[in-house]
């Protein structure tokens, strides 16, 4: 490079952070100096590659999680269904439906089974608005839920993002009785502020919180609330059997 324009200046040039005078100076230098043009292109490629490196890491982690979960799920269908002819599978399904559906559902429906079907909240990789939130996110991501809870308890005031992570941490520890008041508080704040911040997630996780604490009638009401809203993003997460299963839980416990 023949000029005194270094990477920092080129970065500011790309981000349009330079004064108009300096911006023009860089433009002129770029026209005259092929080495500088090359330097700029390398910088652009590098910035793009670093971003992509972040995505690559995220994709690798997701793939690894996906494959480990999928391996466990595949055992059942491969072993019992995959090798049988289709008509046997249908016959077996009909038999099960006719003979044992009700008892099967009754025996197999448990709060624990339902809880497992909820997906755990995944914190966004993006940074949060406060240090507390970032730290809590870090603990949550590392599955150090108790630490996230302790951190929140030490604070006199916690913002709503942190409150949400706190509720999710309690849920991960199966403490629905702690999670539900926080989610309800966030719901109240939404109503007061006329906002719908994370409201759909609040609705969804309240069902889990109620199931964990054994309050199935509230879980059913909450589920019906979601099902009755055609635009609710979690509406399709539940079907009519889920309502039946929650009703069964009401009968059983």
């Amino acid at each position: 490079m023949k000029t005194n324009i270094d990477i920092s200046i080129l970065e500011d040039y790309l981000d349009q952070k330079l004064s108009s005078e300096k911006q023009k100076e860089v433009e002129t230098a770029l026209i005259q100096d092929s080495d500088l043009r090359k330097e700029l292109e390398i910088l652009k490629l590098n910035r793009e590659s670093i971003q992509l490196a972040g995505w690559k890491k995220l994709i690798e982690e997701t793939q690894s999680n996906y494959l480990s979960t999928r391996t466990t799920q595949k055992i059942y269908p491969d072993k019992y269904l995959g090798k049988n002819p289709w008509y046997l599978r249908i016959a077996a399904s009909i038999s099960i439906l006719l003979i044992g559906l009700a008892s099967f559902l009754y025996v197999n429906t448990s709060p624990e089974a339902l809880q497992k079907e909820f997906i755990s909240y995944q914190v966004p990789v993006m940074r949060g608005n406060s240090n507390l939130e970032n730290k809590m996110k870090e603990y949550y991501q590392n599955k150090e839920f108790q630490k996230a809870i302790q951190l929140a308890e030490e604070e006199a005031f916690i913002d709503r993002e942190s409150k949400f992570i706190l509720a999710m941490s309690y849920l991960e520890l199966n403490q629905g009785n702690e999670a539900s008041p926080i989610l309800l508080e966030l719901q109240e704040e939404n109503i007061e502020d006329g906002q719908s911040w994370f409201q759909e997630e609040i609705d969804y996780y309240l069902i889990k919180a109620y199931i964990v604490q054994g309050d199935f009638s509230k879980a059913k009401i909450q589920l019906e609330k979601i099902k009755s809203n055609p635009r609710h993003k979690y509406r399709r997460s539940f079907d009519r059997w889920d309502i039946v299963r929650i009703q069964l839980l009401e009968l059983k416990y």
Partner: protein
Amino acid sequence: MKLNRLFSDEELIQMIRGKTMQSQAINQLYEQHYGMLEQMILQNSGSHDDAADMIQESMLVLVQMIIKDKFRGESSIKSILYSIAKNKWITEIRKKSSSQIRNEKFHTDAEQSTPDITEAIAKQEDLNYIIKLFDQLGETCRKILLLFYFEDYSMAEICKRLEFSSEQVLRNKKYKCLKSLNESVKASPTIQSTLQKILRNED
């Protein structure tokens, strides 16, 4: 009970482009499309491991296309992912160059990829090379650069998070890290040809 609701293609594109809930977005892409892509590779002489490698790289190409506005949802994510994976897999089996595993129809179909996909795959190969050079930087350098460029942290936040004594010290370190990466890239013959192409197009 289904685990979570499915986002539409348009929402997924927005989530990736805007870097909001990107984990959920990538997760859904895997849940929805991994099986289909894996099947395509298994049916065309690939193994499960080949499929895993190809799908991971294809996801990265898709993300890159979305970020660079090369894919705005003109076709479905499913079809674009399929085309990317197919194109990449054909290139891979050509590299292996075993005529006995060639499937002519499969090859012919691949030629029909859109220029955008071919270009994105070629671009990704260059960027992958730079990512390898990036991976060779020290841990602190990688952390600083990822936090700044991928996670969009401010210098003040990185300073606190990585416990630097001052922002100026951090700035100097970031400058050195970037410069070091620039030097490695400059010294790489592989990237030189790409650079020449870019510079020629600008002239």
